[in-house]
C-alpha cells in the first residue's frame, strides 16, 4: 500500500491538475482543423484545381480564418493575465512551443489572406471595389498561386504539428510525452478537414476524393493511436499508468466509445461503404469524424492532466 497525504489544495492543481479546461482543447481542435484545411486548400492551389469554379480552395480559407480567429479567442479566454497578452509578441522564446505557435499563427493570417485574394467574397468587394482588381491580377500569375499553395501547406503542416508538440513538450504529463502526438494531431486535423470538405463540397470529384482521403487519414490515425499507446505501455511505469488511464482508467469509456468507436471506426465503415457505392453519401459520417476530433482533444488534454509522474 502506498498512501500519500498532502496539505496542498491549490485551485486548478489539486487534487488532480485541471488548469486547462475547455478552451485549450477547443483551440487545439480548431487549430488542427484549420491546419488540415490549409493543407487541402494549399494542395488544390498547388495542383491547379483552383481553375474549377466550385473548388473548395475558394471557401476553405474563409472558414479557416474564422475558425482560427475563434480558436485564438478561446486561447485568449484561457489566459489568466489577459492584460499582458501582448508580451507574447515582444519576445521569441526558442525553447517554448507556445512562443513558436504564437508567431506561426501570425504568419498564417497573411497566407490565408493571399489564398482569399484569389476570389474575394462579394460583400467585401462591394465595400472595397479595388480588391476585385487585385484578385484578377493575382489569378494571372499561376506560379504565384502555386507558391501560395505551398506556403499554405507548409504553414498548415506547422500549425497541425504545433498543436501536438505544444502538449508533448510539457514533460511533466506522461500521457503527452509521446513522440507521435504531433502526428496524431496532424492526421486528426487532416481527417477533420477532409470530413469538412466531404460535408460541404460542391464539387463531386472533391467530395469523393476527400471521402477516400479521409478513410486513409482515419486508418493512419488508428495506427498512430496504436503507436502512441504501445509506446507508453513499453516505457516507464508512469507512462504505462498514463496509457492505462485511457485504456481502463477514468477516461476509458470516452476513449473507446467516442474517440475510437464513434469518432473513427464507425464513420470509417460508413465512408468505406459510401465510396464503394454500397450506400449513399451521408453527412452523418463526416460529422462524426469532426466531433470525434474535438472529443479526441478533450480526452487527451484532460487525461494528460490526470496523468503524472510517480
Amino acid at each position, binding site marked *: *500500500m502506498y*498512501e500519500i*497525504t498532502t*496539505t496542498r*489544495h491549490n485551485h486548478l492543481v489539486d487534487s488532480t491538475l485541471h488548469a486547462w479546461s475547455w478552451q485549450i482543447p477547443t483551440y487545439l481542435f480548431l487549430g488542427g482543423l484549420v491546419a488540415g484545411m490549409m493543407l487541402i486548400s494549399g494542395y488544390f492551389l498547388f495542383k491547379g484545381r483552383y481553375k474549377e469554379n466550385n473548388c473548395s480552395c475558394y471557401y476553405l480559407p474563409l472558414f479557416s480564418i474564422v475558425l482560427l480567429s475563434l480558436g485564438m479567442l478561446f486561447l485568449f479566454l484561457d489566459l489568466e493575465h489577459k492584460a499582458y497578452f501582448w508580451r507574447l509578441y515582444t519576445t521569441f522564446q526558442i525553447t517554448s512551443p507556445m512562443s513558436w505557435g504564437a508567431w506561426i499563427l501570425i504568419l498564417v493570417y497573411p497566407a490565408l489572406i493571399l489564398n482569399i485574394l484569389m476570389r474575394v467574397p462579394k460583400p467585401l468587394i462591394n465595400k472595397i471595389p479595388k480588391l476585385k482588381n487585385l484578385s484578377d491580377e493575382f489569378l494571372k500569375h499561376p506560379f504565384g498561386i502555386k507558391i501560395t499553395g505551398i506556403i499554405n501547406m507548409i504553414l498548415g503542416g506547422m500549425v497541425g504539428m504545433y498543436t501536438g508538440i505544444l502538449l508533448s513538450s510539457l514533460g511533466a504529463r506522461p500521457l503527452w510525452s509521446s513522440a507521435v502526438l504531433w502526428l496524431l494531431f496532424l492526421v486528426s486535423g487532416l481527417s477533420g478537414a477532409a470530413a469538412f470538405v466531404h460535408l460541404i463540397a460542391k464539387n463531386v470529384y472533391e467530395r469523393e476524393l476527400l471521402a477516400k482521403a479521409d478513410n486513409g487519414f482515419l486508418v493512419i490515425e488508428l495506427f498512430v493511436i496504436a503507436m502512441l499507446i504501445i509506446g507508453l505501455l513499453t516505457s516507464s511505469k508512469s507512462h504505462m499508468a498514463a496509457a492505462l488511464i485511457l485504456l481502463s482508467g477514468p477516461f476509458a469509456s470516452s476513449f473507446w466509445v467516442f474517440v475510437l468507436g464513434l469518432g473513427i471506426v464507425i464513420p470509417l465503415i460508413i465512408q468505406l461503404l459510401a465510396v464503394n457505392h454500397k450506400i449513399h453519401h451521408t453527412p452523418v459520417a463526416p460529422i462524426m469524424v469532426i466531433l470525434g476530433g474535438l472529443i479526441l482533444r478533450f480526452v487527451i488534454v484532460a487525461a494528460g492532466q490526470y496523468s503524472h509522474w510517480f
Partner: protein
Amino acid sequence: MTYLSRRRFLKISGASIIATAALSSAGGVVKGAKKLEEKTGKKIKGIQKIPTYCSMCFWKCSAIAYVKNGELWKIVGNPEDPLSNGRLCPRGTGGVGAHYDPDRLKAPLIRKNERGEEKWVQVTWDEAFEYIASKMNKIKKDYGPESIGFFSHGIGGGFFKHLLKAYGTRNIAAPSFDQCLGPRDTAFEITYGDVIGGPERTDIENAKCIVLFGSHIGENMHNTQVQEFAKAVERGASIIVVDPRMSTAATKAKYYLPIKPGTDLALLLTWINILISEDLYDKDYVKKYTFGFEQLKAEVSKYTPEWAYPVTGIEPELIRKTAHEIARFIPSALVHPGRHSVWYGDDTQRGRALAIINALIGSWGRKGGLTNQDVFDIPSYPYPPYPEPKRQRADNPDKKYPFGGAEGYTTGLREATLTGKPYPIKGWFVYGTNLLYSLPNTEETIKAIQNLDLLVVIDVIPSEIAGYADVVLPEAVYLERYDELFAPYFKQPFVSIRQPVVDPPNDQKPGWWMAKQLSEKLGLQKYFPWKNIEEYLDTRLKSAGLSLAEIKKKGVIKGPEIPLNLEEGFEPEFETPTGKIELYSTVLAEKGFDPIPKFTKHKDPPAGYFRLLFGRAPMHSFSRTQTNRLLDNVMNENEVWINADVAKKYGLNSGDYIKLKNQDGVLSNKVKVKSTERIRTDCVYIVHGFGHNSRMLKGAYLKGASDSQLITKYKIDPLMGGTGMNVNFVTFEMEV
C-alpha cells in the same frame, strides 16, 4: 499533607495578603498602530517589532510580532525565549490569522431567544456589565456567592478568577486538569511529592532512550518538547513508541509497539517486572531514594511477558527486548509521563506505573530524565484578602475524589449545577474554554446550563458554548492586549510579557479591563486598586526588581540558572509521607486504594464497533483555531483513520465521506475516511476540535466530525475524578 496544593501553587498565589497604596501611573497606554494613526493623522510607515508571548496554545512561547505599515504582518519566535528558542510552532506563526479571523466576536451580545439558538442583541459594554452585575447580585442574594462557578482555561482567566474570588466563590475549575493532565500529575504527586508540570520537566534533549505511551509529540505540538524530540532523533536516541496508532513520533521510533488500546498498564507492569526480576534497574538509586521496593517486587512478579502477550498483543520477545533497551540506557532513559492522560478511568494508577518505572530507571533528577525546575519569583499584587466562602466547594463535596481538585473539578461543578447538590449553582462564567467540546457528554453540559440564571462566556470567537450564553463578552485576541505575566516552573526560570501589538479591529476588549469594569458594577473596586494594567504589571515587576519598560522591550527576562540534575548538584527532596519516592504508596493504602497499581481489563468494543481514539494535529489547538484562515489552509477538516483492511471490508476508500455512530446511537457530522496502514484494526482515530456546529463559526461550520459529540460515555477516575474518555465505541454509517 494537602495533595496537589504544593508549594508551587502557593508560591504563585501566596503574596495576596497585604494591601499597599497603589503606585502612581506608570507610563501611558501603548496604543496599536491604527489608533496612533487616527490620533496623529499620519500613516505609520515601516516595520515595528514588538515582543509578546503567544496564546495559540498554552505553552506560551515568547514571540516577536512584526507590524508593517501599521498592519500585523508576521510573528516569529523570540530568540531569548527558553521555551521556543526563537522558533514558534505553526499555530504561533499562524497567530496572525487569529487577529484577522473574520468570524471573531465583534461586540458584546445579550441573548434574545432560547439558549443555543444563537440569536443575539448587540449591546454596549456598559449594558452588558449592568446586566451581568444585576444577575450576580440577585444570585448572591438568593443563593449566596458560592453559587457562581467559573470554568477557565488560559492565563487570561486570571483576572476573572480574582474578581470571582473577591465576589466570594471558590468554585473555579479548569478542563486542563480533569480532561487532560490530572491523572498524570496526581500520580507523580503521590509518588514523588511533586508534579511533572507544564512545561514538562522531561529532559528529552539529553535522553538516550525515550519511551512514549500514546504521547504524540510532533502532532501534539508543544514547542519545547518537539524541538527536543527532534534533537534526540537527530542524535540517534533510541525511541520506543507504544501506541495503537502509528503516530508521527512512532514513525521515528526504533521500536514501535502497536498496543491494544487500554492495556498500557499491563505492558508497564510487565516491564517493571522484567527490570526487577532480571536485576536491570538502577539499584543504588532505588535503594537511596525509594520506598516499598520489596512490596513492588512481590506485586509485579505475576506480570510476565507471556501473560502480557494476549492482553496487549505485543509479542513476549519484543516486550523483553524493549525492556532491555530501556535498561541499557540507565541512567539516561526516560519513560515520558505523557500529558493528556484521561483515557480509561484507571489513569492515575497507570500514571503511578509510569512514575514507578521512572524511579526504577532512576530518571528523576537525572540528565536525560526528569529535571529540576524552578520559577522566576514575582510576588503577587498586594490585594486585600478575599472573603472566606461560607460553604465548601461544590465540585468535590466531602472529598469524594480524595486526590482531586487542585485546579478544580469541572465535571463535579457541572454535576452540582445539574443536581443542586451540595447546593445550587446558578451562574457560570466561562473563559477561553469551549465547554461543549472540552467536557465529555455534551448533553449533560447542556442540561446543566438550563439550570442556570446566568451564563457569561468570554471568548474571541463564537464557540459552541457561546451559543448557549446569556451574555457573550468579546475579548481582544492576545495580540491586542496586555495579560498577566508569565513565569512558569521550568528548567530555566524566566518571566515574559504579553503586550498589545495591534488594536482590536472592532469593539473587543482585554479580559483585565472587563474584570475591572465589572468589579466597579459589583462594588468590588477595592480589589482592583490599580488604574490600568500597566500600573498593575509594573507594580509586580518592581517588587521583583524589574520594570515594565524593560520587559516590554525584551519580551523575556531570564532568572539565574539552576542545577538541573544530580550531576549538576541538584539534590531531590520528595514531599511524600516517607520522604522517598513511594513505589508503594502509603497515602493510597490509607485511602483504601491499591498502593501498587494492578492491571484491570477494560471492555472491548462489540462486534462491528471500533474504539474511538482522539488526539491533536500540530496546526490546531483544541476547538479554538479552526476558523483561523491561515491554519484552516493547512488543515480544514479532520479525517477518520481506519485501518486499510477494515476500510476494504466496508468498501471504504480514502476520501469517502461517512458518519460515525457511537454505542448510544449518537451520529457525528460527516467525516472523510483515511484508509491507512497506520492504525490497528480495533480502533479508529480522529483529531479533536473539528466538526463545529456553531453557525457563527463560518470558516469551520460542519467541517469534519467532533469526537466530543461522540464521547457520551466517560469513566471517572476514583482517585481524582478525571474523566476517562477512550471508552466510546463507534460504527460506520455509510449514508451521509
